[in-house]
């Protein structure tokens, strides 16, 4: 390997290795230290110039690689199984969830949080993985949501066709909008995507021909849905649907990150000039990231509509994109866990912080301060600023750092 190429690959190789090391270290605590030797073997390599997982595989003994892969898969699988089992848990968690865990209220809340986690993951493909600061991601999520509801009600299409149609139209939209917006870079790209999303938001709010329902939003056509997804009693199925979406998003992003395209995205994120000098078609790489992120976001919008029983114009607003940005940064940009946890926690906090407004703690404070603190967005905004300053790698990055620190002492 020549030295410029090496230095070109190195930054993303080290971040990659660091991410992997942190995910392994977290997995190993869960698997009772079974994978500890593997993570110890990986750490010295992180400082070397190992550019890809395949290279790691050849240099490390096969048995530890297998244990490593197993440990890496163990934690997500365990989490998935626990989450999938939740609709069978009848216990109450007062203060954390409304009513029983398997009650419709709790499951609906959890499903919404999961969908938000998945949508945050789709935004992270652009922001955390490729370094594209897009303010227009809401456009694609809303496209999924609205295209589904519209094709079910106005065009009365069957559900599978509606889903495919929504994905197809969103894909075309992503190519067009991304193709135009990518003509400029950096901050200008952010503004252009914002403008497009805003245009969509205006269209939806103006309610052309009574199709989008304006400020009221649109409710799903119940007759067009399978009966399993309708009604309060079927909340567990909607919850599992949300869980399935998150799993799909997780798998797509995990596979993407390990693929050649994922490595190219990381290279663009770390140093775009260097990546283009090395001969990567950076425009195509970025457009691919936008299309994949948008399709995942569209799927998220579809599931969001199914879980919540309709489309809400809030999904189209720039505030929603800003919320996605907050979720990703809060959890940790460029990390699968980070975006997921960030999205989940944000949606949870947004829904539950309203409860705090009635608490006795706030009533003891002066009236004005209590009113300000009762705004979820105020608290989230302040937390967000604090995270940007003091934990640039987000909450998961902070957690990983603490775990490593605890082990080294």
């Amino acid at each position, binding site marked *: 390997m020549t030295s410029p190429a090496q230095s070109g690959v190195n930054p993303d190789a080290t971040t990659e290795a660091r991410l992997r090391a942190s995910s392994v270290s977290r997995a190993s605590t869960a698997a009772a230290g079974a994978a500890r030797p593997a993570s110890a073997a990986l750490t010295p390599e992180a400082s070397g110039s190992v550019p890809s997982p395949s290279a790691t595989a050849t240099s490390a003994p096969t048995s530890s690689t297998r244990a490593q892969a197993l440990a890496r898969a163990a934690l997500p699988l365990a989490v998935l199984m626990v989450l999938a089992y939740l609709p069978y848990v009848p216990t109450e968690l007062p203060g954390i969830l409304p009513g029983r865990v398997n009650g419709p209220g709790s499951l609906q809340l959890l499903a919404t949080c999961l969908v938000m986690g998945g949508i945050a993951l789709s935004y992270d493909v652009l922001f955390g993985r490729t370094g594209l600061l897009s303010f227009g991601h809401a456009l694609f999520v809303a496209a999924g949501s609205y295209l589904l509801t519209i094709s079910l009600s106005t065009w009365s299409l069957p559900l599978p066709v509606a889903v495919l149609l929504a994905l197809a139209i969103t894909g075309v939209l992503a190519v067009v909008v991304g193709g135009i917006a990518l003509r400029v870079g950096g901050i200008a790209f952010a503004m252009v995507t914002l403008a497009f999303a805003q245009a969509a938001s205006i269209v939806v709010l*103006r309610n052309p021909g009574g199709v989008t329902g304006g400020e009221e939003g649109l409710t799903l056509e119940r007759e067009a849905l399978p009966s399993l997804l309708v009604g309060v009693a079927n909340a567990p199925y909607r919850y599992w649907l949300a869980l399935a979406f998150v799993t799909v998003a997780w798998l797509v992003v995990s596979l993407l990150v390990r693929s050649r395209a994922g490595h190219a995205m990381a290279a663009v994120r770390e140093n775009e000039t260097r990546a283009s000098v090395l001969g990567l078609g950076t425009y195509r790489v970025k457009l691919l990231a936008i299309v994949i992120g948008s399709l995942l976001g569209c799927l998220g919008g579809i599931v969001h509509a199914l879980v919540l029983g309709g489309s809400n114009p809030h999904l189209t607003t720039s505030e929603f994109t800003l919320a996605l940005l907050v979720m990703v940064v809060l959890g940790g940009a460029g990390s699968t866990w980070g975006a997921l946890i960030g999205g989940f926690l944000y949606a949870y906090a947004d829904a539950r912080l309203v409860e705090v407004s009635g608490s006795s703690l706030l009533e003891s404070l002066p009236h004005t301060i209590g009113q300000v603190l009762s705004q979820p967005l105020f608290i989230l905004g302040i937390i967000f600023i604090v995270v940007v300053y003091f934990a640039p790698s987000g909450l998961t990055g902070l957690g990983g750092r603490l775990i490593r620190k605890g082990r080294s002492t």
Partner: protein
Amino acid sequence: MSDFVLLATTGLALGALYFLAASGLSLIYGLMGVLNFAHGAFMMVGAYAGWLTMTDLPPSLSVGVRLLVAAVVAVALGAAVGVVVEVVLIRPLYRHHIQQVLVTVGLSLASVAAAQGIWGADPRPVEKPDWMSGTTSLLGARLPTDRFVYVVAALAVLAGLLALLRLTRLGLIIRAGVENRTMVQALGIDVQRTFTIVFAIGGAAAALAGILYAQYAGSVSPAQGGSLLIFAFIVVVIGGMGSIVGTAVAAVAVGLVQQLANYYAASGVGDLSVVLLLALVLLLRPTSLKGATA
């Protein structure tokens, strides 16, 4: 014809408001590379400071005098908020552009939420001086007088900014900084101080935009700043990011296109055609956005 004159005047007035909002944004971006999402919060500060001042001043004063005092208070407060934001939030993150944007995003979310908590999400009516709510006859059209006030205010700010940039030493430093910040620093000039001043100017102009937009809308609400901000962003991009004259031209173009299309096509088409204009500019002249002279 009279319809057209009325629409053109309103478009011009809207463009004037966009210019007030975008001029600070454009200067801040040109000099520091910061996309300031908190600019909407600055506008909100101006609007609410103006509203509170007008309601707190004794009603024996005429509305016009109260509005004038309110404007002075709003501009001063906007400048102060701009300075505080720059010193406390932006400066520690110097050279981390994305983080700077993120911090301003957090600030805008928190400040809008705070205003919503204190004064509620609903619009609050704002008093308007009698002479501003009247009409003036021009070219056979009866034009609302307040439109001229916005245009005059924007022209004054434009003239002031141009004089500052072209005639003073500070303006020389700002123009040089927009062109090549590193070189200016290498010559031993304190650019940091200019950053603070530019933020103060931006905050003041935004606060003025906020209080005038509240007059235009007849009310103040927490979401006002954000909706104005989006068009200000579009104006900044079309105007060439960092150029004051470009911003002025773009603001007028955006205001006119929006008003005329909204009337002659259909309501809402104007807002869309503005985005279309942006896409056209990007496709035809992408190089104009990569930097400009102030």
